[in-house]
């Protein structure tokens, strides 16, 4: 009897371990969120500096005063992305080492492939929109494509990533409707949600 119960548990665990990349660390999410908030702060400070208006609504008004702001946002976005990726990879590699799992296996390859296809598509699409001066649309599309990337990737990792993806898409769509509040949606999507989901994943799986 106990033997059969043990067998069932083992079957369950093998099915999960062999089909899902479980070393994704909650700390990766938390650090990505914090970096996004820092990036957002720089963008906000620059906007206040340019427009002398401390209202976070209409962040792209600052871009009307020349192209400096556009370039600045682009640079901050690049640094934020690189920082989030490096810290995310660092914490995940650390967790994999702790649990003696290989970091570069079939699952992490599939995860990365599924994550990067919508992500790269979204990045190129957003850049094209920036080129056309549709800045608020570009900001919304980063949220939408990021959400799609998470949903794709969630097939190969913990379920939480799926719901995070859904929320990012909802925020992205809302930000297209509530024009002017793009910056706030962006802060919630890339900052707050990452910290919330990262913490919840940390306490659920990393402890």
């Amino acid at each position: 009897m106990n033997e059969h119960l043990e067998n069932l548990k083992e079957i369950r665990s093998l099915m999960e371990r062999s089909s899902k990349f479980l070393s994704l660390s909650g700390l990766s999410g938390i650090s990505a969120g914090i970096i996004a908030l820092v990036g957002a702060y720089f963008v906000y400070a620059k906007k206040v500096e340019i427009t002398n208006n401390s209202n976070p609504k209409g962040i792209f008004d600052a871009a009307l005063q020349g192209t400096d702001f556009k370039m600045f946002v682009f640079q901050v976005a690049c640094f934020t992305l690189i920082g989030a990726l490096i810290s995310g990879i660092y914490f995940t590699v650390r967790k994999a080492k702790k649990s003696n799992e290989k970091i570069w296996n079939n699952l992490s390859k599939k995860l990365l492939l599924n994550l990067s296809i919508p992500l790269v598509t979204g990045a190129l699409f957003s850049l094209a929109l920036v080129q056309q001066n549709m800045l608020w649309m570009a900001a919304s599309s980063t949220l939408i494509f990021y959400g799609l990337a998470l949903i794709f990737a969630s097939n190969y990792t913990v379920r939480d990533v799926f719901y995070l993806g859904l929320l990012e898409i909802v925020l992205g769509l809302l930000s297209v409707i509530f024009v002017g509040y793009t910056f706030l949606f962006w802060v919630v999507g890339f900052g707050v949600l990452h910290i919330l989901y990262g913490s919840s994943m940390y306490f659920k799986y990393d402890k």
Partner: protein
Amino acid sequence: MILEKFNKTFESKARLGIMSVLMVNESVNFNSLKELLNLTDGNLATHVKALEEAGYLSVQKEFIGRKPNTLYLVTADGRKAFEDHLSVLEAFIKNS
């Protein structure tokens, strides 16, 4: 007697493990299976052979560069047999 319904092919833990992994993956290669199940080459090969002879898994050989890569896939029969086995296991646990 419910015990008679247990599938003899799945009697060993290793075979249950191999089937579990194959059920949720399109295909799995020899080395991944070995790592996941913590088995030796010889041990894994024997169990895989037994499952293949029972018609529960199929083998595909391919080359990555010059290295041979052996892939294992669950067959329709294997899927059915494993699901039946799980149902019997579950019923057995619930009834006892």
